[in-house]
């Protein structure tokens, strides 16, 4: 397997890819920020997509505050936030997470680590943390988008 498949390189790819996804699909400029975890008390919508292969497995979690998730869904669908229900917002957050992980999958496959991805799942709530299992590394990527915060949590185990 390629030496490229290291956690810092995965983070570097995801940094670029998230900015591309937000710019292309939402016309929103996401700027990498210094690390600051999403406050666990804040109401949020979290999309998750897992990836798994012989050489690597893990998951990508996209955390957005609920008001920002509504704003993202409205921007993507060309509707006003008042016209959106929870189902539409969940679908959009799931789709954005799917695009992030799909890009990562392509990068991993081209680097020699074939893997498959799951369908997206959504977690809603305020008082939750996602704990990695033993042997799994966790990385946080944080971005500012206007006055909003985007947090990407990557769990990865290179076998």
């Amino acid at each position, binding site marked *: 397997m390629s030496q490229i498949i290291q956690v810092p390189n995965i983070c570097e790819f995801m940094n670029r890819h998230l900015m591309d996804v937000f710019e292309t*699909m939402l016309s929103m400029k996401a700027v990498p920020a210094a690390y600051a975890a999403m406050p666990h008390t804040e109401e949020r919508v979290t999309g998750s997509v897992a990836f798994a292969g012989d050489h690597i497995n893990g998951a990508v979690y996209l955390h957005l505050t609920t008001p920002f998730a509504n704003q993202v869904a409205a921007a*993507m669908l060309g509707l006003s936030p008042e016209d959106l229900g929870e189902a539409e917002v969940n679908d959009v957050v799931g789709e954005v997470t799917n*695009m992030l992980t799909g890009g990562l999958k392509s990068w991993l496959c*081209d680097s020699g680590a074939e893997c498959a991805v799951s369908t997206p799942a959504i977690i809603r709530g305020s008082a939750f943390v996602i704990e990695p299992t033993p042997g799994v590394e966790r990385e946080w990527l944080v971005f500012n988008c206007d006055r909003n915060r985007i947090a990407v949590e990557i769990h990865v185990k290179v076998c």
Partner: protein
Amino acid sequence: MAIKILSVDDSRTIRLIVGKAFRPYDVTLLEAANGEEGLAVAAREKPELIFLDVTMPVMDGVTMLTKLKEDPALKAIPVIMLTAESGRENVLQIARLGVRDYLVKPFKEEQIVEKAGRCVTLEKRPVATPA
């Protein structure tokens, strides 16, 4: 007469984005949430163009495309694959199946219209005139 475009994607978000992209054009958008539904809609409606996702539950895009190409009544319909995976192997596999084109997510709405315009003639939606 409006041309029929079929969007087959398990994500309602993507189907809505495809619909939004063609709103200015004289297009009737048909929708299906997986390959099985997509084949049924294609057989019933005979769309002029299909946008097809790759990864879907029930029946994925590759299987639907294979079945479409086996059906003499449907095999000539141009198909544009939509995929979140741009890896070399994935793109090669799609190309081998005989798709007209493919679009990697993330994409801009203009790209959808541009790709469709290479397969079908898109005309602006007629402006409604007051009675």
